[in-house]
């Protein structure tokens, strides 16, 4: 079953989980963006480690692998983080994350979510045929997904919520990578493109509109102009 470089895969997946916890634990937006970018690097390397040998075996496999790895790296580790950091700088908003649940409590939640993921994975792994190739991938993907959802719900500002969305996507991809072994190139690139545009739009909303004052934009329920305007 181990068609790639299994040891490397294990290291990478442990890195994914550690980065999840780090993202929750740090209070600075910039640090979260960088950690998310590192997850992108891991994501770019995963196909090589999990199914590299199998991919390289069939014709055109080298091109496929090189293309996915480089494009994933370029988008997830360079372009998207750059856009995010740009938005943070130009929105002039506070650099600290604002969230509903405090940092300490969030950390507890994250640890619980990682534990739950390992529990769920142990139950479902037997029925998912792809998961045998890298036993850590399923819990790593699931905990990334759950922590991403938690971050998206817990964030009070657009930028911290979109980081949650990116972490969720990373989780989906880690799981997909194991379940499928290889993605069709079109699917992988298409999804990446969607994520990129979503991030760009978020940046546009935050920067262009708020003129720096994101609080004014997203404060409370703010239905004050509800009745008046068309």
């Amino acid at each position, binding site marked *: 079953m181990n068609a790639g470089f299994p040891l490397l895969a294990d290291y990478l997946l442990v890195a994914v989980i550690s980065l999840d916890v780090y993202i929750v634990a740090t209070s600075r937006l910039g640090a979260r963006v960088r950690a998310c970018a590192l997850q992108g690097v891991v994501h770019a390397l995963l196909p090589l480690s999990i199914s590299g040998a199998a991919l390289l075996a069939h014709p055109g496999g080298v091109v496929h692998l090189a293309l996915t790895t480089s494009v994933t790296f370029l988008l997830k580790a360079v372009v998207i983080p750059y856009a995010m950091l740009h938005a943070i700088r130009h929105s002039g908003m506070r650099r600290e994350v604002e969230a509903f649940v405090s940092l300490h409590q969030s950390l507890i939640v994250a640890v619980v979510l990682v534990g739950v993921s390992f529990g769920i994975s142990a139950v479902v792994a037997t*029925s998912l045929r792809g998961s045998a190739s890298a036993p850590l991938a399923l819990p790593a993907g699931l905990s990334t997904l759950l922590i991403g959802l938690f971050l998206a719900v817990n964030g009070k500002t657009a930028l911290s919520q979109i980081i949650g969305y990116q972490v*969720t996507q990373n989780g989906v991809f880690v799981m*997909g990578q194991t379940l499928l072994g290889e993605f069709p190139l*079109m699917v992988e690139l298409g*999804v990446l493109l*969607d994520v990129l545009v979503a991030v760009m739009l978020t940046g546009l909303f935050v920067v262009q509109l708020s003129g720096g004052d994101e609080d004014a934009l997203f404060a409370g329920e703010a239905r004050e102009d509800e009745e008046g305007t068309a």
Partner: protein
Amino acid sequence: MMPLWALVALPAACAVLAAGLPVPRAVLSLGVAGSFAEVVLFCLAAPAAFSGQRLGIDGQLLLDPLSAFHLAIVVGVFFLSSVYALDAFAPELASGRFSTGKARRFGAAWFAFLTAMTLMLVANNVGLMWIAMEATTLASAMLICLELDPPSVRAAWTYLLICSVGIALALLGTFLLCGEARAVAGEQNPFLWTNLRVLAPKMHEGPVRLAFVFLLVGYGTKAGLAPMHTWLPEAHSRAPAPVSAVLSGVLLNCAVYCITRFVPIVEATAGDGSARALLVPFGLLSILVAAAFIVHEHDVKRLLAYHSVEHLGIVTLGIGVGGGAAALYHMLNHSVCKMLTFFCAGTLAQRFGMRDMRQMQGIIGFSPAAGIGLVLGILALVGLPPFAVFMSELWIVQVGLRGDHVWAMAAFLVGAGIVFVAAIGHAVDMVWKRPGEGRQPVAAVTLEWSLVVLPLALLVVIGVWMPSGLGEALAGAAAVMGAVR
């Protein structure tokens, strides 16, 4: 024979073109011309599709009776909404507030939206279908915040976040399903729906069921099913009226379409109706939640948005109880009706300068075409005969009762009853009270009348008489969904 990719390429080209046009009026004209050309292309491609499936680009694209049925609604609603946009943006155009930049943003996002939706419907690759679905979110978020004022941007952002995170779960569901299919696929591509359909009986039940839960929650978020509907009222009410019409009229249908693509696969694997059974509670909850909100809603566009939640709940319930054709018929009726009501509500809100129904009074005297359209539209929406919505709801109830879903149907009728009373209450106030002081009646132009009369006539005609062509299209599309009846 025209290749299928042309259906996607045409609006894509229009999007690029619209982004470069120098005059705002030209963008709106391109909107009408481009969407009309899309209608023509569809009419060329449709006959072959309704009689069987057509594949394109190495099997990546597929047009079969189910996607053709939805595509017919999409191109029709888009064309009429483009025509309505001429009317809706006319005051802004005259006052110069519809700047070139805004027009370009509108034109590019409008056609990008049409491109994404068409691609979603003709995709045979379920991964591509997901990508196009997420692209519809992105394009329509741009349309919702066209005004770029804080409330509309807030609505667009909420919409973008909830739907993107939601359908990330559908992507996971897609991967789970295709991962399972890959184990039995051999040399076949496990991402192609046509292959999945064939491979389904060989797949293991557990992973497929798990995948369907993720697909249902993911695409259900986009369809505005309760309890994942929270983004919908804000997004639909903040968007410019032509955009609301498209969001409500066709985008929600498309999300349900994604779910219905997977129902026959799960059924072929599990074979016990469990996939459909899962749809019933989501449908019922949507109907009841929407009913509760409709009672207290005073914003006309938010009222219509909650009606969307209700009707998509009815559609989901209909599919859940096995009434595929009835549910599709209801989707068509809801689309036509919602398009009409958003046109009229948009026009009225513009002329009154507000959306609060308590202050929009004497609407028929004040603005005859839009007033009559809105009132009759709401009556049609709550299921008053002879409008077609009544017939499709009746059909769903019949199918449900035949299938022993008595309690589900009872709950549905309670919800529909609450909506009926509440919505008519809102409508009566808008009609009977006098318009406020100093409001001069606004005469309607031919364009406005035709946009009201055409959908209303259609609703009455297909409500009292089912043309054989429509009946066959419904049956063909329902057969793809694997519906029993």
